[in-house]
């Protein structure tokens, strides 16, 4: 095998681990605002938004999967030069692929910064009122850094083990708030014109950003695993969770009220009561368990960013550990860049848009280039025949 690769992780990710990776990364801070963003265009029909969004997301993920099938066992960092130039000309390929890799890695970097900022804001405003925002952000970063100390197979196992903790709080809140649901908030089913339907769907795809990490992690998938299926289930689980949360938000509050709350999902939690009153108010517990979901988003993005850097420079685990530590400092400043919550939401919707362009754009452009260079699908069959 000619590919140089760090660690002994090659071909070790099971299908289930891939599904967990996708779902855990997707479910993150976005859920806290999702009921509001989903209903802003489509009003009562906001619950369609995640379903529409998932189609776009799956399309992008499908292209990523096919790219990884075309270059089996390679990450985007490794196959980019092969896409942009012939293998005889590695330097040209590296130069041409540089902007794309740069955009991709920077995007992951910014995502991890902004996610931790949003999470910090939520924690500071609702649970730990006397704790400085910076402390929350730093603790999240340190956790992400701790993950970066390990090899890539650990990431898969961590996501697998935290998976129940990711799903449980959201599902619990969604189902528990159905006690107070007023189902007629959902009607009339469709009253918005087709144009805003499309806009809403576009916006919805924002909340599905995060699966771009698979451009790296599909390289470690087991040969026998079905990446398409793993991706499909990853997106499907997320869609179900998102839809449930939006439906819960609409049925409990109605769409007008949803527009006026900053963290609609957290408000849902506040209305929820545990039978028997073992715990009186749940938002602290919810946010505490929710840390796992946020951690997987932030840490996965940051790890992917660091791992991408490491592969780009062809370095080992020591480089990864040192780089991860020092790059936390700019990350901290990026996280503190937006001055207030309004700016944060502005930035995060910009990031959503950027994510959409990136997730659909990069695979699309790569495939276009591959076909234009006449190196599309056929060659991979030859490669397989070669062994």
């Amino acid at each position, binding site marked *: 095998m000619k590919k140089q690769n760090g660690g002994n992780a090659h071909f070790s990710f099971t299908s289930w681990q891939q599904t967990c990776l996708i779902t855990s990364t997707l479910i993150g801070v976005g859920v806290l605002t999702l009921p509001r963003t989903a209903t802003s265009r489509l009003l009562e029909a906001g619950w369609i938004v995640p379903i529409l969004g998932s189609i776009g997301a799956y399309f992008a993920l499908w292209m990523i999967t096919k790219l990884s099938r075309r270059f089996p066992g390679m990450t985007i960092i490794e196959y980019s030069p092969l896409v942009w130039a012939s293998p005889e000309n590695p330097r040209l390929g590296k130069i041409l692929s540089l902007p794309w890799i740069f955009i991709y890695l920077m995007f992951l970097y910014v995502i991890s910064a902004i996610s931790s900022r949003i999470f910090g804001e939520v924690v500071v405003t609702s649970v730990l009122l006397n704790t400085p925002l910076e402390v929350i952000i730093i603790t999240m970063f340190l956790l992400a850094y701790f993950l970066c100390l390990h090899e890539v197979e650990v990431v898969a*196992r*961590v996501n697998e083990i935290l998976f129940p903790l990711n799903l449980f709080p959201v599902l619990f809140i969604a189902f528990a708030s159905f006690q107070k649901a007023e189902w007629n908030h959902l009607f009339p089913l469709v009253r918005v014109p087709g144009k805003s339907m499309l806009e809403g769907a576009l916006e919805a795809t924002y909340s599905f950003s995060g699966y771009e990490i698979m451009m790296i992690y599909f390289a470690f998938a087991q040969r026998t695993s079905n990446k398409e299926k793993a991706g499909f289930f990853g997106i499907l689980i997320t869609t179900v969770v998102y839809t449930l949360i939006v439906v819960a938000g609409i049925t409990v509050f109605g769409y007008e009220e949803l527009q006026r709350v900053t963290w609609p999902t957290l408000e849902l939690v506040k209305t929820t009561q545990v039978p028997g009153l073992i715990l*009186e108010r749940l938002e602290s*517990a919810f946010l505490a368990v929710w840390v796992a979901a946020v951690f997987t988003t932030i840490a996965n993005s940051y790890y992917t960013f660091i791992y991408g850097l490491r592969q780009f420079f062809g370095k080992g685990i020591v480089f990864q550990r040192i780089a991860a530590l020092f790059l936390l400092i700019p990350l901290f400043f990026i996280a503190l860049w937006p001055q207030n919550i309004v700016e944060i939401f502005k930035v995060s919707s910009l990031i959503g848009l950027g994510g959409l362009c990136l997730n659909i754009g990069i695979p699309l452009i790569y495939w276009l280039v591959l076909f234009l260079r006449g190196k599309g699908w056929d060659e991979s069959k030859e490669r397989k025949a070669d062994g």
Partner: protein
Amino acid sequence: MSQFWNAWKKRKESLRDQSLQQHASKSMESVDDVTITTDLDENIALIEHQLGKSDDLVVRRFQVKTGQDAALVFLDGMVDCDVISQYIIQNLTSSSITYDKSATNELETTTGLRQIIRNILSGNTVLMIEGETEAYLNNTRGWARRGVEEPQTESVVRGPRDGFCETLMVNASLVRFRLKDPNLRVRHMIVGQRTQTDIFVLYIEGLAHPPIVEEIISRLEKLNLDAVLESGYIEQMIQDNRYSPFPQIQNTERPDKVVANLLEGKVGILVDGTPFALIAPSVFSQFYQSPEDYYERFYIASLIRFIRIISISIALLLPSLYIAFSSFHPEMIPSRLVIAMAAGRSTVPFPSLVEALIMEMAIEILREASVRLPGPIGPTIGIVGALVVGEAAVSAGLVSPIMVIIVAVTTIGSFASPSYSAAIAIRMLRFPVMLLAGMFGLYGIMLFIILILVHLSSLKSFGVPYMSPLSPLNLQGMKDLFLRVPYHLMTKRPTMFRVHDKIRLKEEDDQS
């Protein structure tokens, strides 16, 4: 930079290697290549020189039937005197049995001085005869040993009562007697340069994954320890992550546990001089699984496993949950309880973190003291502890009554884990999580849990992920993780240890 670092490290290593070699060669070089001669007196002098004329070295000279001078060399106290006098001396002097057929059960010949010395030191008797170039090594080991007793640390209500003792051969026999599989392999090794401790590596051929067995053996071979007095030395040296608080090799006093684990394709290590056997690779489930789970009906076994998991969580988290709730999230507790708690805490001058730390420290001191206390005065500590820590601390206004309950439940919870070395890991981790809870409340506790989960996921025991079968998910292994499903449903062995013979139970034919 890194080159310089590497060079420096290499230089340091080579220096250390040199000094180690010098050290080792000084004591061993005189023995290694020396062979004995035909001169009896010279040979005896050689041995006496090697052992530094120790006073417990016995040289018994006599004449064999055929007339040559002979000598028996052994260490007093290490040998069974009856065997020597009855079967060796009597036979060789009186009857017509020749010395190469002396009537002990193991007889070897050697010419190397080193092997002779080793055999003397391990309780064998060396027979040397004037004019012979070889020495005869007779197995006469018979030092004071403890009998097979019930294990102290892992007691069960139902199950075999015998535990390992300090003698390697007895321990091996306890395993053999339960496992009459001809494929059981016993590899003898010697570790510890000075203690020369015998160990047995046990595995079932055709079940255990050969690379795992080889890995274990190669790590044992590389073991450069001076002394191995207990299996803990080996455990800490050969485990994958030496800095982890979690034991990556299981230890047990119970032969049935060793056999059960061998049958799952794991490897057992028996160490001479200690009743604790090692089992590797081992995974997280050792924290809450006991052999008894397999002896009782599966409903109760599964229920008890859940209870153990809950009690481990309590032992780890309850004090920190108290700290988090009382100092950060009082709104979560039902209002009546809050009032009761506030009333109880009204006289307490400290924040709840300090209160909890005081009580937990007191309990740890009590525990340590009660372990060290001589048996007859043991109950004293219970009375003193219960009175002081319980009643007096509350009435003096140092701690709140609810804190006493929490400390008590925490302590009891930590005893419910069947494995002591796993339980002490939990016991220790309780303190950092209390500090984090004191800083960040529930958020801090969750940070800690994630930290521990990441660490646990990164651990491996001889190539087997520590959190398997949970991650990577293995449905066959899940049948015996939280639940203990009935035997007829566990037809296959868990594959996480990469067993070769996967079928554990043949399908029953008589489904009438």
